[in-house]
């Protein structure tokens, strides 16, 4: 157990060392990521300057939601960008090198790459909370906790989405990228006020309910039962991701032999 953890820690350190020589790229990419996030947020500002409130949500709620999802996606892709490359690694055969290692495949694969731009996402969240979110100091620990849980669920969903490639014969990279885009789209929209069928989707295969809605509501009105439920959802999605990846990997190994 300790050996595995120290191995994963070594992978994280290795990824971070990459930026010692690439700090300029890190700065440029993350700054532009923040700018583009804010440009999209202006669209919400424009809408709320006319509508003021949508089904009980105002500008501050949208700012908190945008901050949570940006930071959650940022944490996920800054540390676990390898999960976004599952389809590419299956296609070019580089997954084989992970299978040959005497360690669990999924964690080493997830930690095999980092996305420099995602650091901008991580910092964009707190800026949103600070300038537009009407956040009090008492809410900060809740915001950080729900963002971390949201990040776990998003990372799990990323693994699931890119594991589709195990069952595809061709065009897996583009298709899985499109499905990842679906995940991003649904995670950046307002889940409440949607029709029941869409809400059902958001509570199951596209878990925007747990990634953004419940975290944003918890910041507004904290409820320990809902918080515990959110942790439970994170465990369920993480387990599902591990199981689906394992099934896909088994299929991949069988196709090699």
């Amino acid at each position, binding site marked *: 157990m300790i050996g595995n953890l120290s191995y994963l820690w070594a992978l994280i350190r290795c990824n971070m060392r990459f930026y010692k020589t690439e700090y*300029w*790229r890190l700065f*440029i*990419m993350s700054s*532009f*990521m923040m*700018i*583009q996030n804010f*440009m*999209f947020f*202006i*669209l919400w500002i*424009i*809408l709320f*300057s*006319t*509508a003021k409130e*949508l*089904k009980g949500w105002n500008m501050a709620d949208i700012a908190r939601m945008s901050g949570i999802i940006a930071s959650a996606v940022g944490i996920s892709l800054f540390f676990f960008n390898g999960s976004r490359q599952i389809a590419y690694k299956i296609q070019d055969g580089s997954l084989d090198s992970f299978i040959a290692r005497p360690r669990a495949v999924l964690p080493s694969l997830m930690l095999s790459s980092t996305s420099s*731009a995602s650091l901008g996402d991580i910092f964009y969240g707190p800026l949103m909370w600070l300038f537009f979110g009407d956040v009090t100091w008492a809410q900060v620990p809740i915001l950080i906790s729900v963002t971390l849980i949201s990040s776990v669920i998003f990372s799990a969903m990323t693994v699931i989405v890119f594991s589709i490639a195990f069952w*595809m014969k*061709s*065009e*897996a990279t*583009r*298709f899985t990228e*499109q*499905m990842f*885009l*679906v995940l991003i*789209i*649904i995670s950046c*929209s*307002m889940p409440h*006020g*949607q*029709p029941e069928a*869409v809400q059902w989707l958001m509570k199951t295969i*596209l878990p925007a309910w747990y990634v953004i809605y419940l975290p944003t509501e918890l910041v507004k009105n904290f409820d320990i039962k809902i918080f515990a439920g959110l942790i439970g959802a994170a465990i369920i999605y993480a387990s599902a991701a591990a199981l689906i990846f394992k099934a896909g990997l088994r299929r991949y190994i069988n196709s090699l032999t």
Partner: protein
Amino acid sequence: MISRAALSIIGTSLVMGYKRSMASKAFVVGSFITFTVLMVVYLSIIKMIPLAKVEALGFTHLQMIWYLATAEMMVFMGSAWAFKDLQNDFVNENVHTSLIRPSSFMLVRVGMWVGESLTRALFLVPYYMILIYCLSGGFPMRAIDVLLLFLSLPLAMFMLNCASYIIGSSCLWLIQSEPAYWLWEKSVFLLGCMLWPMAFYPVWLKIICWLTPFPGILAIGAQSALGDTSLTRLAAFGHQALWGVLFFFIMRWFDGKILRRIQAGGV
């Protein structure tokens, strides 16, 4: 004057783009899924806006839904990954093999992307019409609106693909093209009025929008759903045509810079 050879290259590139699009069936399915999810989610958001607020701006929920769907359909017709393909060609130095051919690299690339966009339109346009009709329960456009939409589509696609060429090749000067693309994409969303019609925008932002090419890429086509007056339309098409011509010349000028850069110092 465009020579016969150039026309032949454009024609062949369009066909290549058509074949490439037809070969990627999973991608078409993926586009349908993404478009559907996006529309279902944002349609509900539009319906959440109080009707009085929407009517005060001069249109209905139905018109706003069709506006958004039309703008999104145009975004989906564009080749979002095209700049990356080009960047990869520069990074992998594959560009050299393209440059030794006795045909313009720029014409081949842009022609192929336009071909891909137009082929995607063959699938997307009927799907968009049926899906949005089923979701919204109505169709606010007149025959003339639909005709004007289809007239503005090719020019919008041309501008999007020209921009992809310029952004993709900017990696010769910048470390990576991605930051430039992000700014471009979000400018298209914001200044091209992708989610909400320009009537929602404050006056100062409307002026900024009209000073840029972005309304010509999305808003002008999408405004067909709002039933604008003919005078406004005429001005809008003039704006679109002007920027289309400008884009062509900017791309040609930029292409010269690219060639000189590669000749002087390689990729």
